[in-house]
């Protein structure tokens, strides 16, 4: 019997288990998935937790409920990947050999990369919302905060879901308006980029929204340290921004297991072929989701499109055929803009987000790069789609893994 091992039972790993178990069956194949955690978190929900829009119950389920019965789920800490010997070593010394390995160990925040970030003000006035604990601590802080300077900040790129800090700013504007205290809150959006987003047309639309909502923007800010005493962030050029609450997105890094295995770049991401998703160093290792270094967004939507492509490529690999399927960097994201509205963007490696209609050219019903209630309904509906379709590997109707150029105004 041959072994296909998946490391990580998050969004990407769970989808792969669900895609592959239909084809790779006993007695020829056994699929293993390894993850030390018990809970599966709907990470996009962390955005809504601080504003009391979602409750913890909305975003947490058990990992095992999403893993097919025939797949062997091992709840154990992974010590390292020994790629030259085609095996995984768990802590405690158990060894699991593999014929094909899928790395889906994700990315997480590393606040310790920035001096003073995890200092005395951590979770007092300095918060993250990329972890459950961070989002919850921030919720508790915001519930009775009297107002002041709210600074929303990105440390460095790449980060998971690059639009999330913008959404956080928009939702904060809306949250304080509803509490009739918007005039007591000064919101500043601080980014190391030269503008609100990485792509010109979307940047224009998003900066317009920031302006409309009276959110200040500070661009080209590369943070050097957090000053806990003065409650300031300081950049390498000497620029200082003071805060009463700092909501920061710390440096994101791949999992330490990648570092321990000597397989990552300087941020622990695994060098990966951006079209085939095969590891550059090892033919029988494939990487998807946030764990890879491909120049696509780190987001569940990208992992979803990658999973469809990777399923084909793994079957090609197993049959000794050339890897045919090519990932184009497709991402599709709803951007909450507050007050019950959202934007939708759809883009890939070569095409930036533009205006148009989605998924049916000329019809919609969703509008690209324009605020609408329908897009907001789409975002909320997405949580149901995530738990009930996406994780289970069910194809989402009318949405293809590679981006469609129809109905778009390039």
């Amino acid at each position, binding site marked *: 019997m041959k072994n296909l091992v998946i490391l990580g039972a998050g969004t990407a790993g769970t989808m792969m288990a669900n895609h592959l178990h239909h084809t790779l069956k006993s007695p020829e194949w056994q699929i293993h998935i390894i993850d030390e955690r018990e809970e599966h978190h709907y990470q996009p929900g962390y955005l809504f937790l601080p504003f009391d829009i979602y409750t913890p119950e909305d975003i947490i389920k058990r990992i095992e409920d999403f893993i097919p019965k025939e797949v062997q789920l091992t709840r154990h800490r992974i010590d390292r990947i020994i790629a030259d010997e085609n095996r995984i070593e768990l802590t405690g010394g158990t060894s699991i050999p593999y014929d094909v390995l899928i790395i889906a160990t994700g990315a997480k925040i590393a606040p310790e990369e920035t001096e003073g970030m995890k200092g005395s003000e951590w979770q007092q006035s300095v918060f993250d919302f990329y972890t459950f604990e961070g989002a919850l601590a921030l919720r508790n802080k915001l519930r009775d905060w009297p107002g002041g300077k709210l600074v929303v900040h990105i440390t460095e790129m*790449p980060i998971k879901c*690059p639009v999330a800090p913008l959404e956080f700013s928009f939702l904060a504007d809306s949250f304080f308006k509803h509490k009739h205290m918007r005039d007591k809150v000064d919101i500043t959006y601080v980014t*190391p*980029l*030269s503008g609100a987003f*990485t792509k010109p047309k979307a940047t224009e639309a998003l900066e317009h929204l920031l302006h409309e909502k009276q959110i200040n923007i500070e661009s080209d800010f590369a943070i050097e340290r957090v000053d806990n005493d003065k409650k300031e962030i300081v950049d*390498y*050029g000497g620029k200082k921004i003071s805060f009463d609450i700092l909501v920061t997105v710390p440096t994101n890094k791949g999992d330490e297991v990648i570092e321990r295995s000597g397989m990552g770049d*300087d941020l622990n991401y695994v060098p990966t072929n951006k079209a085939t998703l095969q590891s550059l160093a090892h033919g029988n290792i494939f990487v998807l989701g946030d764990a890879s270094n491909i*120049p696509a967004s780190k987001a569940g939507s990208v992992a979803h499109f990658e999973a469809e492509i990777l399923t084909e490529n793994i079957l090609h690999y197993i049959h000794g055929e050339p890897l045919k399927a090519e990932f184009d960097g497709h991402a599709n994201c709803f951007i909450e803009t507050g007050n019950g509205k959202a934007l939708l963007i759809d883009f890939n490696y070569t095409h930036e987000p533009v205006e148009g209609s989605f998924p049916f050219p000329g019809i919609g019903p969703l509008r690209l790069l324009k605020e609408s209630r329908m897009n907001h309904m789409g975002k909320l509906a997405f949580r149901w789609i995530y738990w009930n379709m996406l994780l289970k590997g069910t194809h989402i109707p009318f949405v293809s893994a590679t981006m469609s150029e129809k109905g778009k105004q390039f």
Partner: protein
Amino acid sequence: MERIIEGKTIAVNEEGYLTDFNQWDQKIAEVLAAEAGVALTPKHWEVLKYLQDEQKNQVALSIRRIGKSGIVDIKEFYQLFPTAPLKTATKIAGIPKPASCI
């Protein structure tokens, strides 16, 4: 787009970055540096050379990488090319503006 520097016609994009590195030379770098308010010292040239080599090897440039280059730390990089050092330095070096990761 085209512009003339020191009597030489060079191709640039709308942000003023050279689109053909073969047209780059030290004179052009000096003019671009002066426009950015930077007076080039031997240390500047060392950084520019490093950026050009990394670009040639198709390494994605980032502030973090430059901090680990062994040539300058991030603080010095900011002192050499104030405000947005990576953007300024790549422009003077005649290489494309680094595409920030999405």
